């Protein structure tokens, strides 16, 4: 029987999108000195709102406000008091979850079911988790009297705008630092709603400052002399530039960069769930995930079966309006990103890989790229080596566990990996052998505030989440450096 699901769009009005947003500095919303940026709805390609941006003077003022807030207030109050503020923010996010989900989907293009069920609840969970640590830092494993670093300068990407903000702000505040943060140019809105929640929580002025803008604002922020700690999530190229410009500055740095994760399926895997994990690994958030399982390594003896099941599963994915509650695959975040994904996929054709595209109708407006699987991929091809950051999966095969490890580790990146097998000893052996910060066993793309996340090699250094993530914002030195 033909059974078409009727459109089930979430109401855009719930997002209460304003025509213009301002930056948030020293406890107040105000215009920056930079020129306004226009943010688009990637689902339609239409203008969503305009946002005032910061200039280098605004960066100076924000850093000064953060320093003053640190000196006068935030470093003086007890951990228990800091925890209260964080709990308030966590509850504020939960209370405005539906609004935030709509804002996120309109600004980012991800399906509403993902922003509703993953991004926003997990962002709230990060504040709740770190709120609990604020008065227990001496038990976090960093010595008897860990101290805050001072002012944290943070730059976050566009793939999980609010969640990345939570990953950065929550541990910084819990550890006693104040924050100046720059959201991505294409997704500044949800963090400015978070700014309202922060203001409503009566957080002292200057403890959190939010500066929308492009790369120049980020560069001015991380290089600012008043910043004690830099945390960056984004591309490896920018991460390298930040690291070289900060060399010798004495600033503490954590970088969470790109990835080209291997998702390794052994012949004794739970095949149906492995197929689900492959789908979730590379098509969650349209593949715009730094830890995406973009390289499927499947044992030759089951490769045909796995790929056949994968293709029939992909044929059931629903691509389209990100606001529709039944949409599985939403829009790519920007025209620029869409062209990057398209160009890398074309290189797969040119280098002789075999392209298969899921039979999805591509909407006639907005930025969409259908789920794509390349088979006959060799490790030398660009699609097997470069981070595509889109819904494109490269399928490679292996014969033995050693070959799987060798191929999985044969990348400059090392953020995450997945292992699918029913054999427990093999899971433990693979986890030890894989050079990746996160290894998922019989699952993929699971995030929990209590689990630390971060990379090996060119995927960056430092950890976020869990006690290890707090460590990035703490020091044992008596002078606070």
């Amino acid at each position, binding site marked *: 029987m033909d*059974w078409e*699901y*009727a459109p089930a769009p979430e109401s855009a009005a719930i997002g209460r999108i304003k025509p213009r947003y301002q930056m948030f500095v020293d406890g107040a919303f105000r215009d920056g000195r930079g020129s306004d940026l226009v943010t688009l709805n990637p689902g339609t390609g239409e203008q969503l709102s305009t946002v005032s941006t910061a200039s280098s003077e605004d960066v100076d003022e924000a850093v000064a406000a953060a320093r003053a807030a640190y000196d006068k207030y935030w470093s003086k109050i007890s951990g228990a008091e800091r925890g209260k503020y964080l709990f308030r923010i966590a509850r504020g996010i939960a209370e405005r979850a539906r609004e935030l989900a709509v804002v996120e989907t309109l600004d980012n293009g991800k399906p509403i079911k993902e922003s509703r069920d993953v991004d926003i609840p997990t962002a709230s969970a990060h504040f709740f988790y770190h709120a609990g640590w604020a008065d227990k830092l001496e038990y976090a494993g960093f010595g008897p009297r860990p101290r805050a670093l001072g002012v944290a300068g943070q730059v976050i990407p566009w793939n999980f705008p609010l969640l990345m903000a939570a990953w950065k702000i929550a541990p910084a505040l819990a550890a006693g630092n104040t924050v100046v943060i720059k959201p991505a140019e294409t997704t500044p809105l949800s963090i400015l709603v978070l700014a309202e929640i922060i203001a409503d929580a009566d957080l002292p002025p200057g403890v959190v400052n939010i500066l929308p803008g492009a790369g120049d604002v980020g560069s001015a922020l991380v290089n600012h002399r008043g910043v004690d700690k830099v945390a960056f999530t984004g591309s490896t190229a920018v991460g390298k530039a930040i690291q070289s410009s900060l060399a010798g500055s004495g600033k503490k740095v954590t970088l969470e960069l790109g990835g080209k994760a291997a998702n390794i399926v052994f012949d004794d895997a*739970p095949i149906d769930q492995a197929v*689900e994990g492959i789908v979730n690994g590379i098509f969650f958030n349209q593949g715009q995930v730094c830890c995406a399982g973009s390289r499927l390594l499947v044992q030759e003896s089951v490769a045909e079966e796995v790929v056949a099941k994968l293709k029939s599963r992909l044929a*059931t994915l629903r691509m389209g309006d990100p606001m529709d509650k039944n949409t599985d695959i939403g829009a790519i975040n920007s025209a620029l990103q869409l062209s990057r994904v398209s160009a890398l996929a074309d290189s797969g054709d040119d280098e002789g890989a075999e392209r298969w595209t899921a039979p999805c109708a591509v909407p006639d407006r907005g930025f969409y790229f259908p789920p794509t699987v390349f088979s006959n991929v060799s490790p030398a091809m660009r699609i097997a080596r470069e981070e595509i950051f889109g819904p494109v999966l490269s399928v490679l095969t292996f014969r033995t566990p050693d070959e799987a490890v060798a191929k999985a580790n044969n990348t400059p990146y090392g953020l995450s990996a997945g292992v699918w097998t*029913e054999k427990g000893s093999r899971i433990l052996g693979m986890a030890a052998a894989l050079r990746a910060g996160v290894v998922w066993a019989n*699952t993929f793309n699971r995030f929990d505030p209590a689990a630390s996340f971060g990379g090996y090699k060119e995927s960056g250094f430092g950890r976020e989440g869990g006690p290890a993530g707090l460590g990035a914002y703490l020091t044992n030195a008596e002078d606070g450096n």
Partner: protein
Amino acid sequence: MSTTNVQDDSQNRPARNRAGQDVTGELTRASAGILPAHLADATVDESSLKRFLAGLPGVDPVGLEQRSAGLATRSIKRASKLQAIDLAISMVDLTTLEGADTPGKVKSLAAKARRPDPDVPETPTVAAVCVYPDMVATAAAALAGTDIGIASVATAFPSGRSSLQIKIADTKLAIDAGATEVDMVIDRGAFLSGNVGKVFDEIATIKGVCGDTRLKVILETGELGTYDNVRKASWLALLAGGDFIKTSTGKISPAATLPVTQLMLTAVRDWFDETGELRAVKPAGGIRNTKDAIRYLVMVHEVAGPQWLDPFLFRFGASSLLNDLLMQRRTQLSGHYSGPNYVTVD
């Protein structure tokens, strides 16, 4: 499917390798359909069957439940909802399986099956009524002249704790009284103790007794303990010739769940991919309202495929579900809720 209970090889079966045959001997055969070699080989003898079932890929509970939970978030509105409600009504096996069942109760259930909503006559009829064997004649008389199925539980329902002779007699009692579908239970004790040959033989024998009467094989998943066992029992029932695999008797909690049904839908889908045969699935027990029913239909749609959105291939074993479907159907048509006083008790 052949209509006889044959103990020997059928002429049209592919040649089988007998090298691995062991002391347990040959399994009973009811089905003479041509199976691909690896499936035909699986039923040569009990040790082959055990090896086949042990070789099925494992089931990861976290991933299975995650997919079920994800599908349960589908939002089915407007026309697609009305379509789903009508489909769900047409898939109901309207059931009464109580010690207190009387002819009067069964007649009133049959009347409900014929005309689920007397005020809205174009409401679809249900697929079948499902009763104990001694009530089949009453149900058959009350449903004469309709195409509503008469399903009977059999084989020492619900526990399955009796001899094969009793189970055969129980099945014959139901069929002779007019049952057009038989819902048998597997011997869970035999399954859990590893005696899969006995389970296979019983299913195949009962299928032989049933002939063209469609056989639903109740796995009683609530007693099987693991998803791996549910998958094994599903394949066992399919190999032995069951037309349906059914989750539960309704007497054990948990009864039907979305993850278990997902697993069984995957099994019939895989069976179709390997043999070209369409087998059916019936979750039973615990499905009480329209929202739940629609979640199951979404799962049928996206896990097995649109082909299974058909009362021939999917059923709901339920009693109170029907009234909620009828109330929701009225709501869809009239734009406001009516209430339980406007649908008939059964």
